């Protein structure tokens, strides 16, 4: 025992031990969900965010320029395709307008409350990515919308192609986006996404983990009788408050029996590309009166 005390008498060792304990305590404390950040954190994030803002955009432009030159040849083909898509879109738009009007009048005649009617009126706010954390486990982005713009923790962030992540922390002028590639069933902070197929709403499953090795999302708890099949487009169902309805997640790559045999599991290839970040959209859901 005396020897142990002597060893602890060594000041350096003592300091190292204390520091280690403090760090582990800090990590444990910050791991759980936190409502708001303290002001030193906010200050630091906003200051650094300002500096990053200056660098990221020009770098993106220069890199984008080279890429654009590379893509010049594909432009013609792409243009052709877009024209076809646009024509189809205009045709469907007319149809859509009729349906929406009908829907609205039906809702009115059924005496929907205001909150119920506006439940799916999402607005999309454009955000500029200002820096990227390349840490492969704890992947996050910083965007230039913050508390001042009304961003809240838990809002979904999408790119043009599909769901990208969730706002994890907000400071005054910037906020951090946690990518869906960090989703993990064992992680206390991440929430599963209730998902369905775009064309067949019979499908139901929960996406709650991402496989780093194959770069696929896993959709679990699908019933045996489920009509899910390969190449189905999977979108969020929006039953919970966490994720809005109809965000595109990805395409089904394969469907197999789950480990326990009662349900099926689908691997889903994320639609969003997790690289070359430029503009993203934060999805604002209408305020729910408590």
């Amino acid at each position, binding site marked *: 025992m005396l020897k142990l005390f002597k060893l602890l008498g060594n000041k350096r060792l003592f300091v190292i031990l204390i520091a280690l304990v403090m760090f582990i305590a800090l990590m444990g404390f910050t*791991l759980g969900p936190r409502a708001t950040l303290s002001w030193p954190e906010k200050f630091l994030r906003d200051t650094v965010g300002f500096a990053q803002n200056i660098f990221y955009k020009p770098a993106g432009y220069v890199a984008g320029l080279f890429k654009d030159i590379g893509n010049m040849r594909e432009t013609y083909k792409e243009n052709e395709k877009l024209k076809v898509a646009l024509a189809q879109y205009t045709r469907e738009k007319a149809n859509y307008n009729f349906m929406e009007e009908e829907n609205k009048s039906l809702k009115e005649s059924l005496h929907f409350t205001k909150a119920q009617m506006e439940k799916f009126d999402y607005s999309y706010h454009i955000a500029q990515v200002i820096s990227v954390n*390349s840490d492969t486990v704890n992947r996050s982005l910083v965007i230039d919308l913050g508390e001042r713009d009304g961003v809240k923790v838990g809002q979904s962030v999408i790119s043009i192609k599909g769901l990208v992540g969730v706002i994890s922390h907000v400071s005054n002028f910037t906020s951090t986006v946690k990518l869906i590639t960090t989703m993990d069933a064992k992680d206390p902070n991440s929430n599963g996404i209730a998902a369905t197929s775009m064309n067949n709403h019979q499908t139901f499953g929960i996406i709650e983990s991402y496989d780093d090795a194959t*770069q696929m999302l896993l959709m679990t708890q699908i019933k045996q009788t489920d009509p899910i099949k390969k190449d189905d487009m999977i979108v969020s169902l929006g039953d919970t408050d966490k994720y809005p309805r109809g965000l595109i997640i990805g395409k089904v790559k394969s469907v197999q029996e789950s480990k326990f045999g009662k349900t099926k599991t689908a691997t889903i290839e994320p639609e969003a590309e997790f690289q070359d*970040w430029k503009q993203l959209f934060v999805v604002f859901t209408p305020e729910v009166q408590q």
Partner: protein
Amino acid sequence: MMVRKQVLVLLLFLLFIIEGTIIPWLLPVSWQNVIMPNLVFIVLLFVSVYHHRHTALVLGIIFGMLHDVVFYGEMIGTYSLVMGFSTYIMGFIFRAPRAPMPLMMTVVILGSLLFDSMLFAIYRVFSLTQVSYDWNLLHHILPDLVVHFVFGLIIYVPLRKQLEKIARREKKEKAA
């Protein structure tokens, strides 16, 4: 002349900013999700060997904390702990202010391995990742090592010169 030291810290901050903003654009697309270059850490390894490990420890904790707070995804403190600890340990083992280039490159390699492994260990302990160490070693740590090594080679000559100038000044001040 303490200005040189302050300029060094300022350059470190600039490097930190560049790491998050410009480096992702420079990497080839297929590498963007593979490597996580931590250039500030490599510079701190140089500081630790050629200057003093305590300076590197303090700078490591500060810049690690900066990284943690700015990219706050899961928790605060991982980078701070890992950067401070591994720069200190590397400086502690290789106490050679006149280390030649091969030795310094060994420090960079070992330091990079230690850094990424420790980071992975912490994430694993808090069960933020489920992949095995072998897989991580092959897919993230080794590619990382290559990038760190190349960066170490690039900055070796200018950085060592500056650090030695600082050391010489300090010696002179002590003598006076």
